[in-house]
């Protein structure tokens, strides 16, 4: 199961890398979103995918799955959610002000 997940994460990372290297701003942002998906899945996978019950004490007598990676992912998700929201608005403003969403056009010195 872990091997399957790692292959999937590898595919996600390669897709993310490909998108981040493109010139269009929106594709790059999509790439970073996919990269954070891959990172979150990686925490879950490396925490161990052994069979166990949901970590709720009242629901079952155990053994449980590891609760720590789930807490880490929850934290990382809200952080990347906030950053992505900020980047999307910033990309919109950059597009509105500079009139382009192409990174090669944003190179060099703009007016100070």
């Amino acid at each position, binding site marked *: 199961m872990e091997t399957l997940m790692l292959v999937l994460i590898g595919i996600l990372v390669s897709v993310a890398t490909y998108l981040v290297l493109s010139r269009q701003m929106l594709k790059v*942002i999509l790439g970073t979103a996919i990269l954070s998906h*891959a*990172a979150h899945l990686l925490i879950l996978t490396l925490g161990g995918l052994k069979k166990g019950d949901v970590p709720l004490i009242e629901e079952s007598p155990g053994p449980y799955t590891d609760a*720590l990676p789930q807490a880490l992912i929850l934290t*990382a998700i809200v952080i990347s959610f906030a950053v992505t929201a*900020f980047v999307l608005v*910033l990309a919109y403003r*950059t597009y509105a002000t*500079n009139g382009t969403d192409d990174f090669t056009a944003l190179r060099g010195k703009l*007016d100070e």
Partner: protein
Amino acid sequence: MNNFVLLPIIIPFFFGMVLMFGQKSLRFQRGGAMLGLILAFISAVSLLFTVKNEGVQKITFGGWPEPFGITMVSDMVSALLVTTTLLLAIFIVWYSFSSIGTAREHFYYYPAIMMIITGVNGAFTTGDIFNMFVFFEVLLMASYVLIVLGGTRAQLAGSIKYILINVISSALFVIAIAYLYAIIGTLNMADISVKIAEINQPAIITVIAVLFLMVFGLKAAIFPLYFWLPTSYAAAPPPVLALFGALLTKVGVYAIMRTYTLFFIHDTAYTHELLLWLSVFTILAGCIGALAYFDVKQIIIYNIVIAVGVILFGVAQMNETGLQGAMFYLIHDMIIKAALFMLVGIIVYKTGTTNLRKMGGLMKSSPTLGWFYLIAAFGLAGIPPLSGFVGKLLIAKGGFEAGNTWSSLFVLATSLLVLLSVIRIFIYAFWGEEKPVQPILTNAETTKLFIPTAIVIIISIAYGVGAEYLTPFMSDAGRLLADPSIYVDAVLKGE
């Protein structure tokens, strides 16, 4: 229980939240920011002396036993860095009063500064690797706001690159923590150190060490990961640039210092050799950039890169002298970079350009500024009575002790290039014929900016002249970095 450790983090956070209200009242915003920073600074100084007298201070949230809760640890290294951060923040905020402009001040400028200070102090104090990631995000999120606030075309173009680079490096940080957790099974930094020593650093831990070096190297701008820094920092207005130049890359340097002296110390032949070569190339790349530009901002920005290389060269020696020198140089560099960016800001406000070729003859109109700039430039290069000397001396001495003769000589030789790069600003901007200028601020306004700048330079002189009084603090920090068992015992076994 020792809630004292948290005060330098909680006070700026509290004031940051309070300042989100009443954004139209300038007096409230400025007064609140200043009051918060001064209170936090007083608490940081008393924390520093507590750490000096009673050893490492720690607190674990919720009273959980040690590896299970989040521990905040204040040792000599972090106490010194927290104190310096707050001291510089006070003067940079003072500098902002008459330079950042009321439009920005009305739009959450001071709350963002308070949040960035919260994040920086938290990252310096935390004893938990995932908590460090969270504090990194706190300071990065606030820095995104500060770098883009105002929304000029150059700012928007520069900041989107800065943000994307940091998003990617944060994702890498999460991946690195995931790998470390899979092998070690703990997140507490002292506990990680113990567990890595138990399994004697197999090859996979060395791989993770390099991954951490990549993550923190992206934040700290080491060679070959410094490419984003010049373009993004150039977009920020002068007070924000001073804050970034003094604090942000230093958090990355601190993180490398901490992980490479606490975790990854069992395969130094590979990891620290790599760090040594990367730091040498970082210095070289910084020197090339600092000499290539005729733009005052870019010259000082490339000097950040050089200093990061010098500090990490001290860390790579892994002996007490080198680490003590790295601490001396780290604090020196935070102070002097804040001073230089503030000075360069004044020059830009006076002449209305960042291009050296369009400046000249400032010595006639503002001689005091010129002499203070010269002192700061000499301090940066490390001329003996001034602040950069002791750190670089110890770093080179550590290098000779570790047998890295040629690279130590290289570090010493590059001081000349550093001096040349900053003296070029002095020669072009202050000497020669006076040239027509379009000042952005009037003379009365730049005089107001000059007072905090002069005080920061006087602090840097005092830091160099009074190095003898600081040596006990620095040697404590050096000993703690050279011997991780002090840190581990203090965290896991109690006081």
